């Protein structure tokens, strides 16, 4: 078996006096889909955001695709490494965070052109390909405000994919959606998983976790309370807290 593409060691995160993540380790293999579930306030989102340094970890190391960064460092080299990791890890947000002043196409080609210095026509060709893939090519010239939540999230996924990431991080991608719009986003995520993308997903979508995930982590109070394949964690959880949480949401 190959090397893990994500390696997290001894990750801690404090918000002031608040100890949010209490020293967790994680290895994710290429093409693996890891789903993190847990009660709110458990530190799931914070952990995910520590992976691409949107939150600076308080201690520990993060290594993604061979680029290793230690927490609490600074300086030019540190910033360069963060940039590098961010290009390898695409991220999808709960609130979509599309750029409202750009069209759908503009949103997607923005980063490839400014960051990767990709020629414009090439970026457009790739963007159109991705839009086709998420089924929104006909919305190419619309502004985000004219799209439904589900459509916006699919554009956000296409935008992240335009940077050719090695891994994809999903931060509660369906939580801000109306129930009838969740399906279309989940369907895109499933296809992405089937095409072999490495994914770390924080979600409350138990169906997605059960059907797509290779591994499910139940996080509580800043640590991995339980980590197991989905069939095991959903049918026969070992921990009492996991059992209670699942009873609550299922």
């Amino acid at each position, binding site marked *: 078996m190959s090397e893990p593409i994500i390696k997290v060691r001894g990750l801690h995160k404090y918000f002031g006096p608040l100890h949010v993540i209490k020293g967790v380790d994680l290895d994710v293999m290429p093409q693996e889909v890891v789903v993190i579930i847990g009660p709110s306030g458990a530190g799931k989102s914070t952990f995910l955001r520590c992976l*691409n340094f*949107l939150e600076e970890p308080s201690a520990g190391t993060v290594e993604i695709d061979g680029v290793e960064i230690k927490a609490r460092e600074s300086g030019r080299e540190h910033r360069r490494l963060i*940039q590098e990791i*961010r*290009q390898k*890890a*695409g*991220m999808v*947000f709960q*609130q979509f*965070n*599309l*750029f*409202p*002043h*750009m069209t759908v196409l503009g949103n997607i080609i*923005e*980063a490839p052109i*400014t*960051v990767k210095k990709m020629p414009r026509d090439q970026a457009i060709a790739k963007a159109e390909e991705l839009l086709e893939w998420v089924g929104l090519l006909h919305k190419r010239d619309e*502004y*985000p*405000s*004219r799209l439904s939540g589900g459509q916006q999230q699919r554009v*956000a996924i296409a*935008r*992240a994919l335009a*940077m050719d990431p090695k891994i994809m991080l999903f931060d509660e991608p369906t939580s801000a959606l109306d129930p009838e719009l969740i399906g279309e986003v989940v369907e895109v995520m499933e296809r992405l998983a089937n095409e072999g993308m490495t994914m770390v997903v924080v979600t409350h979508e138990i169906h997605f976790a059960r059907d797509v995930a290779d591994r499910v982590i139940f996080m509580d109070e800043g640590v991995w309370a339980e980590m197991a394949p989905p069939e095991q964690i959903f049918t026969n959880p070992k921990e009492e807290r996991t059992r209670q949480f699942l009873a609550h949401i299922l």
Partner: protein
Amino acid sequence: MSTLRSSTLHPGSRAMRLLCLLVALTAGLSLLYAVQYYLGSPLRLAVTSEIHDLALSPTHHLVAAAAQDGMVRLWDMDADWKMYTLTGHTGPVTSVAFDASGPTLFSAGSDGKVYLWDIPTILPAGPSNAQPVKALEASTSPLRDLSLTPDGSLLATLGDDHIIRVWDVETGEVIQTIGPNEHTRHAVALSPDGTLVAADDANHIQMWDAHSGEPRQRLEGQWENEEEQENWLGHEKEVTALAFSPDGAYLASGSAEGTTLIWDVEQGQLAWETKGHLGAVSEVAFDASGEYLISSGGDNMVRRWKVTGGKFAGLFKGHLGSVSGVAAGPDENTILSSGVDGSVRLWEVVNNQELHLEWTKLGLMPIWGKVFVIWMLGSGLLGLLLAWGLWRVRTWSYLGSLAMYTIGPLFAVVLPMLETIAYPITWSTRLHIAWPLACLFVWYYFLVLYLRNDAIAIPYQAPDAESLAQRLMAAQQTRNIRQGLFVLATWFLIFILLFSVLRRFGLDIAFMRKWLPFIMGGAGLTMFVSAMAILLATVLALVGALGRLAKNPVINGISGFYVSLIRGTPLLVQIFIWFLALPQIGITLKPVTAGILALGVNYGAYMTEIFRAGIQAIGIGQYEAAHALGMSSSQTFRRIVLPQAFRIVIPPIGNEFIAMMKDSALVSMITVQELTFRAQKLGRQNFRNLETFLIAAAFYWILTIVFQFFQSKLEAYMARGERR
């Protein structure tokens, strides 16, 4: 059938009957007005027309007056002051004179024409339909003054083109043209023997040989004590009136400062000086014997002086406005005067008493008069028809009344206002002014009711269900349109009222029209200064906002200091510092540069806060999304944050720009020749501040409206990503 809508105007109600009565009443008044226009020509309900000049015939029983409404008024004193109106001029009449032969009446008008009227043929023909026997015309430039030799062979005219023309009356040819001289503006006089022609030249008087046009004596003031420059003997301000004594030995002149001087023509020297008028002297005249001089002034007074010695010999008060013309009366003991109040008065010298008073009855300009009377006739008939329709509850009568409302005010109020300026407030005047206003009120009241209760006369029918939604939508749309119409009508009414009031106080439209282009010339500079300043302000504000948001204490401190200092001091003081104080430390700026810098730096400080707020309004999510895509901080700021911040600050910047356009008036203080500066300069020079500042204000307003329009377009464009 049930009625959902309750209306005070339902058919047969008391309000409805009252309304019918009112409409019928106004219609009846219109008819009355039209009918009496033909019966009594001109109108009996007298509003008066301003008089500019006065003349007494050599036979001593006719008085002629030059009136603003374009008609010459002629009174026959022997026939109990029977009035004749002579129509022909297409603009205000400015000057009149009689000659001895005939006699013939000469009238000069601002249409540039001199008409000759043959009195013996006019008097038997009756009070109307007089035709001029001859017209003299050399240019279309308005004529200011006219002077005639007593025998009527030579005529001199002065026009607004500053050219003096001497005419041979017999042939109707111009025999001499003098000028133009831009300081010759008010008066021209021919000596009784027809050899000399005199005219004003600023505060001096120049005389020429009337036939050859060669310059002759020049009557100039001088210092009594040349070295100390003490006691000026002469006019201080421009000469406004001139008259030769009957024997031609003396020339009297009146001036804008109120003095009247009597010059010895032969010597070319000042003989006597008289002082008394508190306003500009409008006309001077000698009596038949040449012993007394009469003068009229802007102080509403007529004064009489003994020529020899210049001693005061009588004061005559009674005119309600400036006195515009004087003449010796039909006998030695009387004086005639005319005023802008539209009156001609006969005074008794001995007791300083008013013997007789005549008003010029309102005359509408010939063209407008016809339109007006036709309108009155038409609206009267239509009004009766409408009243009948209202009584019988017919829908068309409502629509008709609405139409009447929209056109009515224009004719009923604006036309009379345009035609008359000053008038004495008498009961007949009040009536005259009151009735169009009464019509207007009725129509306005009617419109309000009509808008409140649509189609009141149509009986209510229950709609079938499927068309209800459509009808509700249509009704909403109609209501909106009506609301808009109503607002427009209100604006229109305010404009008319404002205009009428200003007009009543002597707003000089001709002056405004003449100087409009000059003041307008400043609008370009106003816009240039504002545009350059807003560009500078935008750049400063962006830099300032970045500074305010910066973590670096030095940068933060500098921008904080800038904002605090500039916002804490008055803009006017800053303008003076840029222009007046900086030269002291060796930096001299041109007025325009200083103005742009002062405005730009000042508004930059205010806009810094706007930009800061705009940048801070961008959510953290946008930063995170950009960072997660690998964009650096500067890329994120340039590509993601700034464009969105701009969109947020565009409306307030637009507001700032509009505010700045108005604040740019302050740079007139440092001699930048923009709108306000020009208005101020022109207003001071001509004592026409009301007119010039009204023009300037109108321009600022128009500019503001135009930019608000563009700003709303820009906002719509910038907001294209927004959810609507």
